[in-house]
């Protein structure tokens, strides 16, 4: 007989509660159709009170076969699908895709075309960040900020509309060039828009940045250390928020970014506040880039001088038979732009990070010249997929309410996430 036998057993020491008084974890589904989930995504959470102890993310609700569609459409037709990848900054997707194809074709744009693309990219980036910051502010209850920011985005879109004739799905580039030259007075309007955007940013800065409610909701929430962020494949403003100065525009310069003077903003800790501040600062930097582009933009042709890629001038198409034949040749079924066999990966800096296109051209059985008029495979490296994949890591052990700012700062875009 040991001397502990007189003690009650452990079972007896725990009082038995009625089932409804026992502490239980609660399962809560957030999404797919939930106001905080702009875009559709489902987060299954296990809650202890308001704390999230475990979570799982399910995506794919907006899978609409981007890659398959691109395989079945010609090189230029596929641009419409890239529009709808990151629909907040469609022009960047257009540029990324077209530059990847141009890399495969081995052609380069004349400077004016490159400047036009740069301008479009940066205007889109401002729009993207305005939407992202505005939407996450709205979800935090700051509806006025959202309205101001969308007002600013509306000005950016006015520019885009004037250039390419659409607001969201821009079709702003073609393989081997851009569809139009800049309209008259567009550059002046650019400067006006930048002025407006800066005003709006200053106002929203007052409304948010030093506000204790906002700071406390963002600070030290969704923390992501730099090494972990890299291992998870984060890029863009989120990675820079963690303090890694990686920006495709600086590190793998394309277009004319290396000829311009601008800075890469980086954060300190890698929390939501840093990501917010990085985005705010990036908008300022984009404004600077646009100003320099407006000052520096040269004259000259906008499309590359390659008759096998670029559509002839409309005057030639209408007027002479060579132009017409060239035109037919580029559009007719089975002809089109012939891209030789090969594979390329081309990254650009999208609104959310490194937007890479891995494009494979591979002749099919009908091909005689070893080229193909459509892509064999178009793979989009979605910038926001790593962040969303990592979402459980940055929302676990925080409260339900923290999903909102964290998810907002991740800036999930359904189109590019699910493709």
């Amino acid at each position, binding site marked *: 007989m040991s001397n502990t036998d007189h003690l009650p057993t452990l079972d007896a020491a725990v009082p038995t509660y009625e089932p409804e008084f026992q502490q239980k974890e609660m399962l809560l589904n957030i999404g797919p159709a939930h106001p905080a989930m702009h875009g559709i995504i489902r987060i299954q959470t296990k809650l202890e009170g*308001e704390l999230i102890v475990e979570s799982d993310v399910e995506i794919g609700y907006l899978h609409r076969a981007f890659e398959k569609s691109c395989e079945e459409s010609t090189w230029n037709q596929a641009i419409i699908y890239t529009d709808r990848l990151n629909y907040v900054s469609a022009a960047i997707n257009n540029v990324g895709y077209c530059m990847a194809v141009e890399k495969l074709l081995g052609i380069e744009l004349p400077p004016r075309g490159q400047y036009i693309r740069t301008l479009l990219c940066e205007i889109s980036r401002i729009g993207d960040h305005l939407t992202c910051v505005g939407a996450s502010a709205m979800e935090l*209850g700051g509806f006025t900020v959202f309205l101001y920011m969308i007002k600013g985005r509306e000005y950016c879109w006015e520019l885009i509309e004037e250039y390419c004739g659409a607001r969201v799905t821009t079709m702003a580039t073609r393989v081997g060039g851009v569809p139009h030259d800049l309209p008259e007075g567009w550059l002046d309007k650019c400067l006006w828009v930048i002025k407006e955007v800066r005003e709006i940013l200053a106002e929203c800065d007052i409304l948010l940045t030093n506000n204790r409610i906002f700071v406390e*909701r963002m600070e030290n929430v969704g923390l992501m250390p730099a090494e972990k962020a890299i291992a998870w494949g984060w890029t863009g403003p989120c990675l820079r928020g963690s303090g890694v100065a990686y920006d495709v525009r600086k590190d793998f310069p394309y277009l004319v970014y290396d000829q311009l003077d601008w800075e890469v903003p980086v954060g300190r800790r890698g929390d939501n506040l840093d990501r917010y501040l990085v985005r705010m600062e990036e908008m300022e930097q984009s404004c600077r880039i646009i100003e320099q582009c407006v000052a520096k933009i040269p004259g000259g042709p906008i499309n590359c001088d390659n008759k096998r890629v670029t559509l002839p001038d409309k005057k030639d198409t209408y007027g002479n038979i060579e132009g017409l034949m060239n035109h037919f040749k580029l559009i007719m079924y089975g002809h089109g732009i012939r891209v030789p066999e090969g594979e390329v990966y081309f990254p650009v800096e999208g609104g959310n990070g490194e937007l890479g296109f891995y494009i494979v051209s591979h002749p099919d059985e009908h091909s005689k010249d070893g080229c193909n008029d459509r892509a064999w495979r178009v793979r989009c490296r979605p910038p926001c997929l790593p962040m969303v994949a990592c979402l459980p890591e940055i929302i676990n052990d925080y409260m*339900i309410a923290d999903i909102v700012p964290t998810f907002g700062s991740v800036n999930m875009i359904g189109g590019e996430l699910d493709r």
Partner: protein
Amino acid sequence: MAPQSQLTSACKPPHLYRLTNRMFVDLGIIIGKIAFVLINILNGAGILTWVERKQSALISDRIGANRASILGIKLLGLVNSLADAMKLIFKEDFVPPKGLRVVHFLAPIFALGPVFLTMAVIPFGPPVDLFGRHIKLQILDLDIGVLFILAFGSIAVYGAMLAGWASNSKYALLGGMRASAQMISYEIILGLSLIGPILAFGTMEPGAMVNAQNEYLWGWIPMWGVIVQPIAFLLFLPAAMAETKRAPFDMPEGESEIIGFATEYSGMRWGMFFLGEFAEIVVLAGVMTAIFFGGYHIPFLFDAVEKTGQAGFHFPWGMYIPLGEWTVIIMRMLAFGAKLAILMWLQMQIRWTFPRFRYDQLMRVSWKEMMPVALVNIAITGLVVLWLNK
């Protein structure tokens, strides 16, 4: 029981047994006052829905509702609120099949009802001499009026809590839980912050508090609650806004987080919650006016009773603008309305300026930050009052 009944019958004043004309008039006056207040709150709440839309629109450079019209009358979009009300009444009333039906039915009534009762103790105008008697423009002059306000304010908690409980939905339940925790916490701050003014004015009767605010420090600073008790006001305002469950304190709804305790409500039953929020804004503006902004008083305006027959402005530098008895009364009622309007505007403006708290931060602000400040305020006020009365 017998001795007691003997006692009561002996003590009963004789006029209670006789229905006199006087009593009918009294009854009529009370009913009139109740009707006046009720209609004003309901209309006020209805109009506030419009004000909120228009105000938020103007803040964000929009126009707001302006297209609904009855026979060409648009009233700048005010008609839209009418359409909202009518639509809500005829909207399907959904009851969750596995929810608690009775509680689900009662919750909106709990949310809306007490709000109206709170207004009963707030004086909305100066006493009037009419029909040969002295009428206070206040439904109920309770000696413990402030406690009455707090008591009925806390009943509103049940509305949100029961709604969340009865809906058989996790979102609603979380919302209800948040609502109850939040409202109970801020109830306490509300009470503590009112103790300062109570000590300062030496009364708990709102009417008396209002009259105490027509005194002047050193002869020229009006002794409004907000001047003698600024910290109490700065505590009361957020606590009151938390009671209304509106941004930045709209956790119980927290639309982008958990959708809120009214998730499973539709039609007019949801409309009652909605209306309740706006009615609370009116009522809280009333309470704030009465306790912190001098009620119906205008600085340096006195009536015939206060300045022995010389109604009008008496400025400290000796200037005197005589005004008629009734002019003063009407000016004071208008002043009350104006103060109410400004405070409601303020609440709206705050709502459209601030983002939302997080749940734990809200609790922390209440218990760890506002509570000590409130207690210190009480202590200091008590000491000052003690020192002054010595």
